[in-house]
């Protein structure tokens, strides 16, 4: 559209140039003819021949300035019959309307009254011509004198310039119209020569420079453009177009307008050969895309913002069209399938998330019914491990396209915690039951344990009482002992003792699963408590016999700010002893060359932190997740009941309202952290 307008404008401009040119030619012809005319005075016959053949007409008027002669060409050129004209003065046939007309005629009559020559007087006449419209006549004339030098009248030539005037008027009109159009266009339209001088500019261009069109045209861009660098860049583009002769599209360029506002323009420049100028110029249109660009950036920003929001969600989100092809996925989904959004787009969701393929029916239904469809606790398998996920399919209704979003929430942790809570509840009821019958169980266990201890003691040949009794009844106690050994009676007795001890341990562990009053809580110095545990560990049967506790380096890193903690001393001792045992066991199993346990305490504003850090084989992630579950054990069957850590967890979290956590990496040891709440006066 814009280029069409420019083209028309150029066309009209070129037309006017051509008409001006033609005028000049005519002028030239006329003067030549005047020479011929003077020559013709010598020969009337030749004069007549020539006048009849000329493109202009010849006129004569008498001393009263009335037309006396019109050559034949007059009628041919103007369509006015000579009888309307002959015998009348020029002003009698003229159409005089405006004040300017009257002024013009006053001057002309003045000239005639003074018998002066005149050139190119243009006037209008409406008298009886066949066109039925005013004709524009242009005449030149000079006075004629008789032989005595007496004024005799005027003689001259005339030409009909009606068509030319009309063409010029039409051209002017069309030029004004085109001017209006290009000024109406909000884009900048301009033409510049190779030196950067504006040959043409529309209102928008001029306004951008804070000037009027008149002020801008014929000035160099260098003098009107505020930012030199911008001007030079634009002029370089101009020169490139002029020199290459090829158009250039500039997708984006900066333009600082006269108010200092930086706009973004999209510009097309084409080479432009101006008639009358030997040099090629450049014609350009610049479209202000500042707002479009801002809008585009805003859309991009919004898109990024939304992407960030959906990425920040922990749920796996998969957007699909009604046929199950992916439109968008968020970051957790990218991680889940290992493929980026860009790559995933357009692929079938079941291909990337095979475990969810069964949800296709739900997608179809959700879109059809217009409400979300839930699949709670879907079981998924990931690398051989069971996962639970709540899956929800939301229908999406956009302007035209519909689709759905599949939301997948991994609820494995919650399911585990719930099952752990169920377990804990179970343990609590076990604890309650155990507490109720502890007395009944512990008495027979006491009889078993104490009985076997007494038996072992009373067959010991080293004991004087035994020897005395044996002697009295005539038995050799050493031989009896050999007999008991050979028949493995001592072994069985030891078995009874150990079995009793194990049963007692289980009962004691089960008893731990009961919420107790805090009446057993006493202020305990943490350092003293840890030293007691280390002493206990050193004398612990298992640790002494199986895990060589004395070969383990014990390091202490105690926070002096930590003083007294209110806790059930025995229970916490048991918890820490249990952790030491586990560490010793793990390090022994892995044959760690210099097994080390670090006992560390820290004062944290609300907590007393006690950490047991080993340099053992560490714990893998799978085990870490379940380590505090009751009856979860990594030890071989029979080596542990799997109650140890869950009991510790229960004691710390339930009975002491503290925290027990573990961090570990395979091969890098493990760190168990006990946090016990600090009451008032806990600081020493």
């Amino acid at each position, binding site marked *: 559209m814009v280029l069409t307008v420019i083209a028309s404008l150029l066309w009209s401009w070129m037309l006017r140039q051509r008409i001006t040119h033609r005028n000049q030619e005519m002028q030239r012809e006329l003067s030549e003819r005047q020479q011929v005319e003077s020559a013709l005075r010598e020969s009337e016959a030749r004069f007549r021949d020539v006048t009849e053949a000329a493109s202009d007409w010849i006129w004569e008027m008498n001393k009263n300035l009335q037309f006396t002669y019109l050559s034949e060409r007059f009628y041919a050129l103007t369509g006015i019959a000579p009888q309307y004209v002959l015998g009348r003065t020029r002003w009698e046939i003229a159409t005089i309307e405006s004040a300017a007309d009257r002024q013009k005629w006053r001057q002309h009559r003045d000239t005639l009254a003074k018998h002066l020559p005149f050139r190119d007087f243009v006037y209008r006449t409406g008298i009886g011509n066949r066109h039925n419209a005013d004709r524009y006549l242009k005449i030149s004339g000079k006075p004629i004198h008789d032989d005595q030098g007496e004024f005799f009248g005027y003689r001259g030539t005339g030409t009909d310039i009606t068509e030319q005037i009309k063409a010029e008027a039409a051209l002017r009109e069309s030029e004004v119209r085109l001017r209006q159009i290009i000024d109406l266009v909000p884009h900048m339209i301009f033409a510049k020569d190779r030196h950067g001088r504006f040959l043409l500019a529309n209102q928008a261009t001029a306004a951008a420079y804070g000037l009027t069109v008149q002020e801008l045209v014929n000035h160099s861009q260098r003098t009107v453009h505020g930012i030199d660098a911008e001007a030079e860049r634009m002029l370089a583009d101009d020169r490139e177009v002029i020199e290459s002769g090829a158009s250039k599209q500039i997708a984006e360029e900066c333009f600082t307008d006269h108010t200092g506002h930086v706009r973004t323009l999209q510009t097309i420049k084409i080479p432009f050969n101006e008639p009358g100028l030997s040099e090629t110029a450049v014609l350009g249109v610049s479209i202000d895309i500042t707002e479009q660009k801002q809008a585009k950036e805003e859309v991009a920003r919004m898109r990024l913002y939304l992407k960030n929001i959906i990425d920040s969600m922990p749920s796996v989100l998969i957007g699909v069209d009604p046929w199950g092809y992916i439109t968008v996925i968020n970051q957790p989904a990218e991680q889940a399938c290992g493929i980026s959004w860009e790559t995933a787009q357009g692929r079938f969701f079941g291909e990337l998330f095979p475990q969810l393929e069964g949800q296709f029916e739900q997608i179809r239904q959700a879109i059809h019914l217009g409400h979300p469809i839930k699949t709670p606790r879907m079981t998924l398998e990931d690398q051989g491990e069971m996962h639970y996920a709540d899956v929800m399919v939301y229908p999406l209704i956009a302007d035209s396209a519909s689709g759905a979003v599949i939301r997948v929430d991994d609820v494995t942790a919650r399911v585990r915690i719930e099952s752990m809570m169920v377990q804990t509840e179970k343990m609590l009821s076990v604890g309650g039951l*155990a*507490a109720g019958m*502890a*007395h*009944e*169980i*512990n*008495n*027979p*266990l*006491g*009889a*078993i*344990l*104490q*009985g076997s*201890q*007494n038996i072992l*003691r*009373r067959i010991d040949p080293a*004991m004087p*009482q035994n020897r005395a009794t044996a002697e009295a009844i005539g038995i050799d106690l050493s031989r009896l002992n050999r007999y008991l050994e050979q028949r493995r009676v001592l072994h069985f007795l030891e078995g009874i*003792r150990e079995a*009793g*001890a194990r049963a*007692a341990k289980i009962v*004691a562990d089960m*008893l731990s699963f*009961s919420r*107790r*009053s805090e*009446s*057993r809580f006493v202020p305990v110095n943490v350092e003293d408590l840890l030293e007691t545990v280390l002493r206990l560990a050193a004398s612990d049967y298992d640790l002494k016999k199986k895990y060589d506790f004395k070969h383990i380096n014990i390091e202490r890193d105690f926070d002096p700010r930590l003083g007294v903690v209110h806790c059930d001393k*025995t229970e916490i001792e048991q918890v820490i002893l249990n952790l030491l045992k586990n560490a010793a066991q793990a390090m022994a199993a892995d044959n760690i060359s210099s097994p080390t346990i670090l006992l560390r305490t820290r004062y944290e504003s609300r907590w007393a932190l006690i950490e047991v850090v080993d340099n053992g084989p560490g714990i893998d992630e799978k085990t870490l997740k379940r380590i505090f579950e009751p009856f979860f054990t990594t030890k071989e069957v029979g080596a542990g009941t799997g109650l140890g850590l869950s009991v510790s967890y229960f004691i710390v979290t339930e009975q002491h309202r503290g925290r027990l956590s573990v961090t570990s990496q395979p091969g890098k040891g493990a760190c168990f952290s006990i946090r016990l709440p600090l009451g008032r006066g806990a600081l020493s």
Partner: protein
Amino acid sequence: MTGWVLIIDDEEMIRENLKAYLEDEGLRVAAFEAVTPALRWLLDGSHCRVCITDLRLPDMDGNTAIRTLHRLCPDMDFLIHTGSSNYSLPEDLRTMGLDNACVYQKPLSDMAPLAAAVRELVLRENRP
């Protein structure tokens, strides 16, 4: 050897085993299945330094038994040997000098620590 050790427990095998172990340690032990016969024995003029008592007894509860015995023999020390897991010492027994260390949880897989405690109390000079 000075003084007797008194054992009150209604579980015969517990009673017998403790008695046997302490006797092997060279202590004089009197064992009863309830408080009443023990009281009768004491009222008959026996002098006892240490009493190991269960808390669930056929004729009275352990705390009452300790109070009763304490009134009768104010210089007697008490050790508690109980099968119940949620026992906590009443305040008046604490003022009598008992603490959590005096409470032994059944079953005892090793009687040595109890025996050591008994020996220490028996050998101790009269309390001020």
